[in-house]
């Protein structure tokens, strides 16, 4: 699996650091970090599907939305306890993930991206017109049960969730199965020629991605306590997820995490200067510059920086 002692030390250090952080940062910063944690979960989920297998999804909020709406409706309208509603939401999202898989069996590239975008738009329209008494229609839902109170508890929960997802995916990607998933993104025909079932591998990637998206979506809605379709199915939300993964570095686990934190804090610090949608212009420009300079993302910049330091230290 190629696991080395320093991998455990780095993950251990990151986990310890993140759990000690509430001792030294303000509640405001913690709230920003909660959003960064959820964005990291969504970016990891997107990367499992799109970064690894090369099937670029423009409809990830479709999966997140299924998870969020399912648990919100079950808890708010039918008084189902969250311990039951969240697993149901995750299962429903995985079933939705299989729906997204269907077009991927025949098409890829820009056509696949457009089909996934249509999935997102379809759900956006459906939740507004079909049974608005359940979904809340265009206004969405509020008063949804929250799982935690206070910034620090919300932070601990989101951090535990994000790190659990990240470490699990990191371990999974270190296996031969993870290697095969990445191989699909590079040359699907060769994967088949090596005797692997690309359909099964894609199904696994789509289900895993949907599992994470559903889990993240469900916990996110129970953190917010409300659900607004316009915000959830907003094109800016979609691009924030994609850019976080690309900016941080696709086909890695740490990359989408770094990208998510960078994006969230960048947008937050730009808020006083550029309160409107102009902020997205700035992050777009940064993403463009970084992508031109280092297509492998921030994680590669960090990696080469560490290598240079080590070489300098040796010299």
């Amino acid at each position, binding site marked *: 699996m190629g696991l080395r002692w320093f991998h455990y030390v780095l993950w251990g250090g990151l986990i310890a650091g993140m759990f000690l952080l509430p001792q030294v940062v303000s509640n405001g910063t913690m709230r920003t970090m909660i959003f960064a944690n959820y964005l990291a979960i969504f970016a990891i989920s997107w990367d499992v599907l799109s970064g690894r297998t090369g099937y670029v999804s423009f409809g990830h909020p479709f999966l997140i939305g299924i998870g969020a709406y399912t648990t919100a409706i079950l808890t708010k309208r039918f008084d189902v306890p969250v311990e039951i509603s969240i697993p149901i939401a995750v299962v429903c999202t995985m079933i939705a993930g299989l729906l997204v898989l269907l077009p991927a069996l025949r098409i890829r590239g820009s056509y696949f991206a457009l089909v996934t975008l249509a999935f997102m738009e379809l759900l956006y329209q459906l939740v507004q017109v079909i049974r608005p008494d359940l979904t809340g229609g265009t206004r969405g839902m509020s008063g949804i049960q929250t799982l935690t109170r206070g910034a620090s508890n919300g932070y601990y929960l989101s951090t535990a969730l994000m790190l659990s997802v990240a470490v699990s995916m990191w371990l999974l990607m270190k296996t*031969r199965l993870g*290697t095969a998933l990445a*191989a699909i993104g590079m*040359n699907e025909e060769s994967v*088949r*020629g*090596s*005797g692997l079932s690309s359909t099964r591998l894609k199904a696994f990637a789509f289900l895993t991605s949907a599992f994470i998206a559903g889990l993240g979506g469900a916990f996110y809605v129970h953190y917010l306590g409300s659900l607004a379709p316009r915000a959830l199915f907003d094109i800016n939300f979609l691009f924030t997820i994609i850019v976080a993964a690309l900016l941080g570095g696709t086909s890695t686990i740490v990359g989408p995490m770094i990208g998510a934190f960078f994006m969230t804090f960048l947008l937050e610090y730009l808020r006083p200067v550029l309160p409107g949608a102009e902020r997205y212009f700035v992050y777009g420009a940064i993403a463009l510059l970084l992508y031109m300079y280092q297509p492998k993302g921030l994680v590669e910049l960090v990696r080469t920086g560490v290598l240079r330091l080590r070489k300098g230290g040796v010299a």
Partner: protein
Amino acid sequence: MSFLEIDNLSAFYGKAQALTDISITVQPGEIVAVVGPNGAGKSTLLDSIMGLVKTEGDIRLRGHSLVGRSSSEIVRSGVGYAPERFNLFPYMSVRDNLMVGAFTAREDIQSNLDIVHKLFPRLKEREGQETSTQSGGERQMVSFGRALMTSPELLLIDEPTIGLAPKICLEIAEVIRQLNSEYGLTVVITEQNANFALSLASRIYVLESGRMQTSGTEAELRNDKRLLDAYFGGH
């Protein structure tokens, strides 16, 4: 019974027909070459054996039909495929490229890896290197290695010398001979380099525009001036 029998094979990409009525037999332990110019259908022939394209006709391995079986079943039945070196996973390490091939032969991973490292010591030295940064010859070794990780009895090799220096071609020919004589593999190679094919194979099939033009032993084809002029550049 032949080891591999292909009867009246036609292959299609959508509505376009790429192969027409191809028949080939390969005996156990034999090296057979399929030669022809670009677009002759050589790669399509190997893809057809691997179940990667839509076909008509029959393909039998040890008497059992491969038609309608998935690529993974075909690999599990003992067919290894070394595609052109351009068909590697470029941003993966040498080791990870080999491991993709190891999926179907999980119980033999270490012994197969030992064989690959014995044949290609350079791959062991550079197992952490991305294949996109390797030379053409090294990538060809990775392609061979990945196919060998599937524990094949029949090895299909697609254009092993394309774009490689003559010295590397000789090394590759030596490895193919070694795989055949030492490890008992039956080998089918496709080639544009007719001299390479003649030096290696016991029998040669000549393809052009998706149709079989002729076939024969190395000796027969070397003496056929018309064929040499048409396909082998008058050697």
